[in-house]
């Protein structure tokens, strides 16, 4: 075995019949074909996918429980409640005239501040106010019974002052440190204005 034998063996490789013309045609065709460039979107697809992944991971990684902004609604409470609890039974109203449909009306005493009006469960009027630095809640209802033995004259019932007049029960409650006597005096003043 010498160099000639090897060269002869390699020269024995011959293209198949018709390969010369076939290859020539294909070369011309390949050379004439426009170079296919990958679509532009493919170039940026990987980058976009990475960005989405990073943003998603970042969102979940940096979101700490309890830091979400309170949802809109009445003090955020209404919208924050689970659906099964339904809507709040408290409806804010603008003033005492909104209580007219209930068949009665109540209002904060003169000199009160921070006055808010509200209808609870569609039948109870509520007025929250501050007087002499003490917070009060004044309630009236024709349907709810605050006290079984409520009289026309206000009387203390626990920490509340309760009275009834013309089928409507009234209650004055303070969450502040007002003395019972002060509460009763204020209740008497309110009962006279009804």
């Amino acid at each position, binding site marked *: 075995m010498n160099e000639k034998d090897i060269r002869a*063996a390699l020269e*024995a*490789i011959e293209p198949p019949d018709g390969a*010369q013309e076939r290859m020539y045609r294909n070369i011309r065709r390949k050379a004439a074909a426009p170079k296919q460039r990958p679509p532009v979107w493919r170039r940026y697809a990987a980058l976009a996918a990475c960005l989405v992944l990073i943003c998603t991971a970042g969102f979940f990684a940096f979101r700490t429980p309890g830091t979400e902004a309170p949802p809109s609604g009445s003090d955020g409470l209404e919208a924050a409640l689970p659906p099964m609890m339904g809507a709040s039974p408290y409806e804010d109203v603008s003033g005492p005239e909104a209580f007219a449909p209930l068949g009665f009306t109540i209002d904060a005493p003169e000199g009160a501040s921070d006055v808010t009006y509200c209808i609870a469960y569609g039948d109870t009027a509520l007025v929250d106010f501050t007087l002499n630095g003490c917070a009060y809640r004044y309630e009236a209802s024709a349907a709810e019974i605050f006290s079984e033995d409520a009289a026309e004259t206000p009387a203390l019932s626990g920490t509340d002052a309760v009275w009834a007049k013309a089928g409507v029960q009234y209650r004055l409650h303070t969450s502040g440190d007002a003395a019972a006597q002060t509460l009763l005096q204020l209740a008497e003043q309110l009962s006279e204005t009804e």
Partner: protein
Amino acid sequence: MPEIFAAAGADFEAFYLRHYKAIYRVCYAFLKQAEDAEDCTEDVFVRAMQANPSLENERHERAWLTTTAMNLCKDRLKHWWRQKVVPLDESMENLAGSSDPGHAVLDAVMALPVKYKEVVWLYYYEGYQTDEIAALLHRPASTVRNQLRDARGKLKELLGGEPV
């Protein structure tokens, strides 16, 4: 018209007819399949048209085409699909049935690993010296000489002890 053809003073068809057989042989020796060899040969000539190299004479043309063909063949052999379906090196069992001496030599050369096949091809078929092969393949001349020696040893082994 690319510079390669203008410099050679001939058109592309003449250029193609001068070299297509040699390039087909290179591709066939590496890829071991006629269809792949044809496809690779076409790609080599397309590259020649597109690359537009400045080549002084026919020998330079042949060197450029041969090294391009070898590189394209190696790229194809590296492809994962080819690696899965076609073994890179033919096993010695494939040579067992070869009764024709010339065919046995060809099979033995084709069974060589790619790095040996390159130097054997350039040395025995193209007739380059080891220094020229080293320049073409960008390898040290000593490496080429060692690879040529190892290739001879493997051929001897594949051909049943017959010295090369």
